């Protein structure tokens, strides 16, 4: 139980601070901590494979893409220029978020949740592989296609229109 509390702390605090910070790089780095906390949750819950996947994908790949995007879109104007509608947006966001939080908390706390008789046996990588290849083959293929399409789509979107590279590009 203390483990879960620590994980919650490591996950929620950096996420909340990240969402409030001005500096996008700091936000991204803090979110990496938050994602690592989620990976720790997976590990705590016994989904070892998932924890490593989370670290590999989020800390290894998505954070890199985010940081790269931040660096590529550096603001020439001052970062902290407060737009007139910012305060209103923030207030509205906070209100809506708070409302959703209240509803969710109320719902969770008022629902008697049945607990499985025995805690889950950690799923082995082998079992996971068998599951993927037998029952969820179609889903696996679809995800593969999705990733490929996303890769190509991202390249097409981000590629600049002009083809003026350096002359001796090779």
């Amino acid at each position, binding site marked *: 139980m203390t483990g879960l509390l620590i994980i919650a702390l490591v996950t929620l605090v950096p996420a909340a601070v990240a969402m409030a910070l001005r500096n996008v790089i700091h936000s991204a780095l803090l979110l990496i901590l938050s994602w690592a906390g989620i990976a720790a949750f997976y590990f705590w819950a016994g989904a070892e494979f998932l924890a490593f996947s989370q670290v590999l994908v989020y800390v290894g*790949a998505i954070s890199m893409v985010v940081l*790269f995007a931040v660096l590529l879109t550096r603001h020439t104007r001052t970062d902290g220029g407060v737009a007139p509608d910012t305060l209103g947006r923030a207030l509205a966001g906070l209100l809506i978020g708070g409302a959703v939080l209240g509803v969710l908390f109320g719902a969770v706390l008022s629902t008697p949740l049945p607990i499985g008789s025995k805690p889950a046996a950690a799923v082995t990588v082998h079992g996971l592989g068998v599951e993927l290849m037998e029952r969820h083959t179609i889903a696996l293929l679809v995800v593969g296609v999705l990733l490929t399409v996303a890769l190509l789509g991202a390249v097409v979107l981000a590629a600049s229109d002009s083809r003026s590279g350096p002359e001796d590009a090779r």
Partner: protein
Amino acid sequence: MNAMPGIFAAATGADSLLERWPILFRDTVAGFFPAPLQWLVGSLISILAIVAIFGGVFAALTLLERKMLGRVQNRPGPNRTGPFGLLQPIADGIKMLTKEDIVPRSADHLLHFLAPVALLAFSILTFAVIPFGRNLVPLELDAAVLYFFAAGAATELAIFMAGWASRNKFSLLAAMRALAQLISYELPLLLSFVPIIMLAGTLSMTGIIDQQAGWNFGFIPKWYIFTPWGFAAFAIFLVAALAESNRSPFDLPEAESELIAGHLTEYSGFKYALFFMAEYFGMIALSGMAITLFLGGWRAPLPFLEFIPSYLWFGAKLLGLLLLFIWIRGTFPRLRMDQLTRLAWKFLVPLALFNLGTAAFWSLTSGWSGPLQLARWGVAIALVVVPFVLLGRGLSRGVAPRTYRFA
């Protein structure tokens, strides 16, 4: 925790005492403590052993590298400090420790401090799953290979932190290069060992080593490197590992001639030494990974040499790979950024994908014997060589008779 059985891997009685003594030592020391603390003490001993041994390897490696690079350039290398310059690492360490620690005024102080610490921590984390000997696995994980690369992926993040926190345009450029390099080379690195996992049927390091036990014809070890697809995968892994560990010829993030020292520009003293250490630890860890995946781990190369303890074989293979890394560093010039990404995306990734097919073919035809065995080898070699030649032609098109306009 799942890690428990790994920490207490029992030494089987069949091994010689020479083979078992590290485990026996650890168990004996842990035995002095009450039972609830035993796993903690056992882990601490493992951690201390890793840090001490690989700290020593790091120190020796810095000297070895300088000596080898000297020999590559027909120089004797450092030979002033102590006999044959053997005390050079100590002198370097003292120098690094006594240097002033400078932090730029406009730097992001916290990140500037965190970057080297995080880098070193992540690179030491990768040692946790490498089997250094028959029973010497610090952490026996079911998804050990995944763990290794998850921990390794975080190192480039630390490089980014260093580059960004320094508030230096060279550092920032280095950080962006590091990111681009990671994104480019993570893919071939991961793809290169997928065939191994396919054929071995496991993500566990010990499982992969167990699959490489035995000998063909009684003397050729059944290591994965001695198969056509395994050799190709090893080559791809080697190139990608060089890039992942920021070693020359892929040391663009710290290209001295262009970026001063890249992300290290604003670091001095012991923080600089930490970066250095982390780089070498990363190199050692990736070498250990390559040994496990392709070179049969701690297994002896010939049947009659099995009496030598397994950890010595691991050490010998590690030394060989490190020498290869240094040799490569002394030979090849640095790539340009566009060449680097082109090599990854247009050559290594397709090659690794083709190699996946080759491995599938190999796995499907495992029942072939007699003359069919020859055909299996022939087809597999063709499946490796033909894409290599074709892709290589595509990669080097327009390069071959090179004209230097400004020379």
